């Protein structure tokens, strides 16, 4: 646990065919990993749109992980290729908006890789802890309040 009390809030979009089962396996094998990630089961990593990732950040996530089947293993043939294709462009866009490199992570985790799942979540939690809180919505708090009413005259 950190000194400053910051616990990263992570969202994990997990493909139901591979990575979600990998997470289950990590659980049944009683592997220890940090509790910071809220898992969301998706039909395919290809189903995870940039919109979902942006919404997660806008609503308070500090980091987002997308985990799907290894290339070649997609249940829907090439859904994970689409994920991979979108990812660099999205990263570039998010970096333009001031999100540090590394707040989104793409991983291939199969149903047999419970240990990899636990390791990835552990690593990612520490990486985001090092980056610090994102606090996206904090930016919009005090603008209107900053204006003294008498400053507005016709």
């Amino acid at each position, binding site marked *: 646990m950190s000194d400053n009390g910051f616990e990263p809030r992570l969202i994990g979009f997990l493909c139901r065919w591979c990575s979600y089962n990998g997470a289950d396996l990590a659980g049944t094998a009683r592997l220890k990993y940090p509790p910071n990630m809220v898992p969301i089961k998706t039909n395919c990593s290809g189903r995870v*749109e*940039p*919109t979902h990732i*942006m*919404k997660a*950040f*806008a609503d308070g996530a500090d980091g987002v992980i997308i985990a799907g089947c290894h*290339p070649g293993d997609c249940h829907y043939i090439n859904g*994970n*290729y*689409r994920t*991979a*294709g*979108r*990812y*660099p*462009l*999205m990263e*570039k*866009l998010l970096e*333009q*908006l*001031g*999100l540090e490199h590394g707040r989104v992570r793409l991983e291939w985790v199969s149903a047999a890789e419970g240990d990899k799942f636990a390791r990835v979540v552990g690593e990612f939690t520490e990486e985001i802890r090092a980056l610090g809180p994102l606090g*996206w919505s904090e*930016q*919009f708090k005090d*603008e*209107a309040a*900053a*204006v003294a009413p008498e*400053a*507005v*005259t*016709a």
Partner: protein
Amino acid sequence: MSKFKFAMYWAGSCGGCEIALLEIQAKIIEVDQNYDVVFWPAAADFKYKDVEGYDDGYIDVCLFNGCIRNSENEHLANLLRAKSKVLVAFGACATMGGIPGLANLSSAQEIKDLVYTQTPSVDNPDKVYPQERFTVPEGELDLPHMYDTVKTLEQTVDVDYFMPGCPPEAHQIAGVLDVVTAALKGEGELPPKGATIGVAPKSCCDECERVKDEKKIAGFRRIWEFFPDREKCLLEQGVICMGPATAAGCGARCTSVGMACRGCYGPPEGVVDQGAKMLSTLASIIDAPDPDEIARIAATVPDPVGTFYRFGLASSLLRRARV
């Protein structure tokens, strides 16, 4: 019978929306027959205090263009909301932040630094900046406070209707005025509150007459790097065209004259975030054998935010850049 009351206001606006209203041409005479102008700074001499003196709901319809960029814009948004029965966010700036919304890539201070000290043509060795308050012998003067974040009208006050476009097209304005006037006369119904008006169903591509084939591209090109085919879809020729992520309504004005759509009509119905939608559309039409190659090509888009959110950054999910 007495005429209805009409108002139009420009907040953080370029003035183009005001001109667009005049593009309805002879129809403006009908507007004059049906409405009294009770506030329209671009066209008639009214003061803010005139509006403050009106009863709440006095104005029947107010077309509000421009974004909310400073405290004066915000004050007028609140004032006109209270005084208007029907408040229309008019144009891309009022509905989505528009071009001025790109200021959300910087802070207010960064913009002032650039304008007052860093621009090569500026000679300001003492770093004099405009002050919000200044005392002169006659009293105190003040300027509006500039916000860090450009807001849409809806992020500021309750809005009845949204009419996108930079600026909205004349035939759409005429159509909307017909509907509103008929409803005020009791001869028709207003659209449901919160509706986007002056648009057509589906996307800009549906109105575009260019020939569409399979969308598969091997890389991006800019319009000055080659002579695009006059008939074929621009996106299929590698030019980033926002058509698939943009609402129909303009009649595909830009693509019909060889320019890619920039997305001024905002996202089509059901799309939450125009830029995110365009991003996934682009990535899915890149024709390459493996994810690494797709990624390499996708990363060659020079300015994703400025391209995908040219008009919609302020209304996007993330709304601005972190500064």
